[in-house]
Structures are given as C-alpha cells and as structure tokens.
C-alpha cells in the first residue's frame, strides 16, 4: 500500500500581495500535486502567477521549473510536481488593480 498525505497549507487565506507558503517536507514522497482552490477574488485585471519552489534545507529556495500557473478568478487549479527535493512551497505573485484572492492551498503527496 502506498503512503499518501494531504496537507492544507493555506486555509481560506486572503492574499493581497506576493506570498510564499510555509515550508513543507515531502522527501518521503515520489510524487506530489498542488491544488489551489480560489474561493473569491476582488480587484480589476487580477492575475496570480504561482511557481513550485524546492529547497535542500528549508531555508534557501529556488524555482523547480519554469512553469507558471495562472489564476484569474474563482475555481480549482492543479498541477503535478515531480523530481523535487526535501522541501516544497508555492511562490505566488499578484498583479492587477488592488488584487485580492481568498485561497485554499492543498499539497498532496504519495510515496
């Protein structure tokens, strides 16, 4: 039986500026997937770009790949994560006129 785990890293958090999620250790996992559930948005021309980041020590971070994942309104966005190291987090940048987004961010992982 494979091990599987879901962590809710942000729970209905309202972001109004750039953010990163708290470091989460997933070295045991062979694969992972982000689910970003945007519950509500505000502001004009909202664009949230999210990138997976990895870290060898939980202190220093770099982007895993060049892929940006875009949120412009409510709904669920997901993408897989492979070939990562000890830690995972999400980096998000917000663009638009007075942007605001309330988000639930899940990290799911499997051995």
């Amino acid at each position, binding site marked *: 039986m494979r*091990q599987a*785990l879901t*962590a*809710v*890293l942000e*729970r*209905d958090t309202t972001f109004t500026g750039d953010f990163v999620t*708290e*470091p*989460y*250790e*997933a*070295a*045991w996992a062979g694969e992972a997937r982000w689910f970003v559930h945007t519950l509500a948005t505000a502001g004009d021309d909202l664009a949230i770009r999210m990138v997976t980041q990895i870290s*060898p*020590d*939980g*202190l*220093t971070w770099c982007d895993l790949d060049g892929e940006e994942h875009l949120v412009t309104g409510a709904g669920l966005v997901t993408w897989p994560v492979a070939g990562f190291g*000890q830690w995972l987090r999400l980096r998000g940048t917000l663009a638009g006129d007075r942007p605001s987004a309330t988000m639930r961010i899940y990290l799911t992982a499997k051995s």
Partner: protein
Amino acid sequence: MTTSERPDTAAELRDAIRSSDPRLSKFSPLRRILAHDDFNSGTHGWTELLGNYNGRGDLSTVDDHMRDFRPPQLSSCTFFDIGTHGAMSGTYALKLATRPYEGHTATAIRRLTMSGRGLLQLEAYFTFKAEATVDPSGSDQFGDVTWDGNLHPSEAQFGCFTVATDLCGDGGLRYHTVARYLNTSLDNQLTRQWVYPVVPEPTPREHLEGKVKLGYAADFTAPNPDDWKPFGEPQELCYNEVPTKVNWHYLRWLIDTRERRSVELQVNDRLMDMSGLPVPPYAERYDSLENLLNFYFSVRTHSTVRNFLFLDSVLISTEW
C-alpha cells in the same frame, strides 16, 4: 502458595515478548496497547487541529486563534549543515512546525474514545528545536543567551511545547490534563520549567456566546500566562548547543480517567508527581463528546523564529 503470590504468567510472557522487540522495548506500556505510532509508516492519525465551523462549511467562522495550527510533516530531520539526521528509529519523525510569528502554535492531535476508565499512559520519544538562522548579518545574542561556543542563541528562540489530553465522559463532563515545558518566558528568558494550567481551554461556543474572543496566535490552551503554574523543579533538557543536533528524549505520562487527573510525568530520568494538581472541568456538560479521548502535542514560538517539535514515535496504553 496463595492466589496473590501466584506468578502472573501472562504478564511475564508479555514483558518477555516486548523486551525482545526493538520497536517496543524502548517503551514501558501498560497492559493494553491502544496505539503504537512509528512515523516511518505515516502519520498514524496525528493530524492538524482546527477549531469548529458552521453548518455551511464556512471556515471564516473558525476562531482566529484556532484556524492556523499547521499540518504535521513527516520529517527526516534534515539540516543545512549536516544533511539528513534521521529519526531515533528509521528515517522519519513527525514534525510540528510553527510559523515564524511570535506566539504561533503548531499542533498534532490524535482522536480516540475510551472503552473503559482507569490508568492511561502516553509515551513518546521527542526532540525540540528552533529553526537555524543562516544570515551573515545575524546576531550571536538572543534573549538572555550569548553564543559562547557552547550555549547558542537559538536555544532562547524556542518557546514551549505541550502534551495534553481532551477528555469527556460520565454524562458530558469535559476536562483536560496538560503538561507544558516552558523553555523560555514570553520575553525569551530561559526558564526550563514544567507548568500546568489552572483553567479549562476556551471553547468555540464561549466565543459564539460572546464570553471570550481571542486573537490570532493567542495561547489556545490557556491564554493568560498567569493561569500557568509550575510543578516540579526546573529541568534542563538536552538541546545540544546548536539548532541542528538532534537528541531524543523519553517522555512517559500517566493519567487516571477514573479520577480525572494526571498521575505522574517522567521525562528522561526525572519523575514528577502530578497527582495533586487540580484539573478543572468545564462548568457545563457537553453533547457529542461522550467517551472522548484525544491527545495532542503542540509547540509555540515566543520569537519570530520557527519552532519545531519532532516525535520519533508514540505509544498509548491502558489498564482497561
């Protein structure tokens, strides 16, 4: 030979089997093992605590001080300087990690129910750390600690960790037994003192009824520092100088759910009598919690540095 002098063959056989099993021989369980949690094989039901929310699943109705206790992590205890430390047994431990926000708490809770009343014991191997700081402009001083080649400022950046129960039964009577290791005071002075609360934990219903409103990062177990009282003598644990050396500590906590009190706490070689400490129950009776048997560990930072509590393994046993 009278009946009372007859050897308890079953007990002797249990002890012999346990002592030959490397997974169990590091514990001293009571007669019946309810749970043996080795975090090399998952989180074993130790999960994040969340406050209560309304019938529409609206999480904005969760109390501010109970909405961000962070999910536990399976950690290989890896650090910037030496790489993977590993756990006491195998590679993984369960890690609770706070945010780097003064007063923030992380929890892991395990939810069972009671099939009897009487002695109940929780054992664990644990260690605790503040997150390492790697910053050329950082300071060699924090709180009342200055780096001297031995004592390290990160030790003063660790606030406290707590082991506690949430118990209910006997017609809805709810109470908590609690033990907290207060490593530092709220102003970051080393205290290294075991403490217990003299009030029950605030509840979501009290908030809903307008009796209490706690802010984000308030102490959810007992928010007023004056409600924590010392027991036992100060105890120095093995921090081992820097934030990246891990030494595992033994904890054994005996409580009595028939008497609704703690009995004793053993941490490494220190045995502390808790049998005389008050355990105040809630004034009102509770519905939907009959036979509740919850355990939680929590860690709270008193600085703007992440605090970690690592659990190698946990064992819960009973005499019922």
